[in-house]
């Protein structure tokens, strides 16, 4: 569905150098600290920014610029009918109403399902006649996702779709996304979020990006089952086999290590305190932690 090969974009104080692949039927999460390049990656995929190197393939077609590519294989405006997009900080003009959005979507998308969109809006209690700018953050976010889901898109690109929402609104959005994937196994989603719980629940695989580079890629199941934090005394650390340690960090009275082989340490070091790892720990340790000599990553 999406293939980024060594995509490069240079800014004054930031360089994106990103490769990733999203296959049909997969929900892929893009994680990383603020300013790491997540939104830039989305914009590159959507052709909103020009790239200086590498190749971007979306739904089997090349996103410009790709001068050597046959024009029939170029991703064109009409191909965007197959995409559903949301941005945290951008959407339909706040001066429009949902009634206006229906008219606009109907004109842009052949497959726009007006009946379903309207019933979803009513079900989520979105006012049809009020300007979008008067909506709460939660209402705006729901509208963005509903609009992205309204035209039978094959691929969703969702940049922070749950930002600033309470737990109930987030759950409603995640339910909508799960339903979307259940309807057709060939669909795919690329999603970024700062709320790790949402991604752990939703995503099949995760890419972590930092300073414009993809520094980690793993299935979510493997992250949840195999990654852990080891809390060690200095003595325990000295005696530890460090082969499966990814990063380490000195804390007040202990050394905390991130591993991707929880069972190995559970079996061989029964005295060591082991806590399950999650996305937040991963981001924190991969960005702030120290590399381990002879470690796994």
């Amino acid at each position: 569905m999406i293939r980024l090969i060594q995509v490069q974009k240079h800014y004054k104080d930031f360089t994106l150098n990103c490769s990733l692949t999203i296959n049909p039927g997969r929900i892929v999460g893009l994680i990383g600290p603020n300013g790491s390049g997540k939104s830039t990656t989305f914009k590159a995929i959507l052709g909103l920014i020009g790239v200086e190197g590498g190749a971007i393939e979306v739904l089997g077609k090349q996103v410009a610029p790709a001068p050597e590519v046959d024009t029939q294989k170029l991703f064109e405006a009409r191909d965007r009918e197959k995409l559903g997009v949301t941005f945290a900080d951008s959407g339909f003009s706040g001066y429009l109403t949902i009634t206006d959005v229906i008219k606009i979507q109907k004109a842009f998308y052949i497959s726009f399902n007006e009946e379903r969109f309207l019933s979803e809006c009513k079900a989520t209690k979105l006012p049809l006649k009020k300007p979008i700018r008067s909506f709460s953050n939660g209402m705006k976010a729901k509208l963005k996702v509903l609009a992205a889901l309204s035209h039978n898109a094959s691929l969703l690109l969702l940049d922070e779709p749950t930002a600033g929402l309470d737990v109930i609104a987030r759950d409603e959005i995640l339910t909508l996304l799960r339903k979307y994937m259940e309807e057709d196994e060939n669909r795919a989603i690329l999603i970024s979020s700062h709320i790790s719980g949402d991604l752990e629940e939703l995503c099949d695989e995760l890419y972590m990006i930092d300073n414009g580079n993809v520094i980690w890629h793993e299935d979510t199941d493997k992250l949840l089952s195999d990654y852990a934090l080891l809390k060690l005394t200095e003595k325990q650390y000295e005696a530890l086999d460090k082969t499966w340690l990814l990063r380490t960090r000195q804390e007040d009275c202990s050394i905390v290590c991130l591993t991707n082989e929880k069972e190995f340490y559970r079996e061989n070091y029964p005295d060591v305190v082991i806590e399950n790892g999650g996305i937040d720990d991963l981001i924190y340790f991969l960005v702030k932690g120290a590399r381990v000599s002879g470690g796994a990553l």
Partner: protein
Amino acid sequence: MKGLFIKDLCLLKNQKQTYLITLILCIGIAFAVTEYDGIFCISFSAIIATTMALGTLSYDMYDNGGSFLLTLPFSRRDYVREKFILTILLSLAGAVLGLLLSLISSGFQGFSAELWEINILIWLVCTVMVSINLPIRLRFDSEQGRLISSAVLIVVYILGYSLLGWANRIWKTRELESLIANRSWLLLMILAISVIVLLSSYKVSIKVMEKKEY
């Protein structure tokens, strides 16, 4: 491109009160001024309509909306084309409505071929105004862009109004009847200049839009 027109018409719907006030003002002036020649009504109506059409660009970019807008299924070229067609058609509609209002207000006393020509001339001035404004507004969507385009708008308005006054003086001077006889050529010349400015602006706008990053 149909979707873009519908979006802009929905956005313009929000400004209907502004335009209604403009029309009421035009009628009021037409009634209040003796020997009213209709020029103010036509130009005011046309320029307000053009400004409103240009304002859809600001609505598009409101709250960083440009990034999302460009993920919808239309090309950047379509966007520029739609903006040109919309602004030019709306300025024409504004000029024609202004003309009709002047005629109605004066009880069709001032109906003349000259008024029609003035109407076309005002529309051409608006077209030049659109041609200068659109690439600037597309290039700068910040406060800077609004300032530059407002300044240009004022300059174009003053120039256009002066040009109209000058043309009006020429056409009303009996001594220059030979020139009056050729005023169609004058109009054609202005039309040709407007078309050249418009086409150049369109090309520049396409380039600006294709290079723009969101």
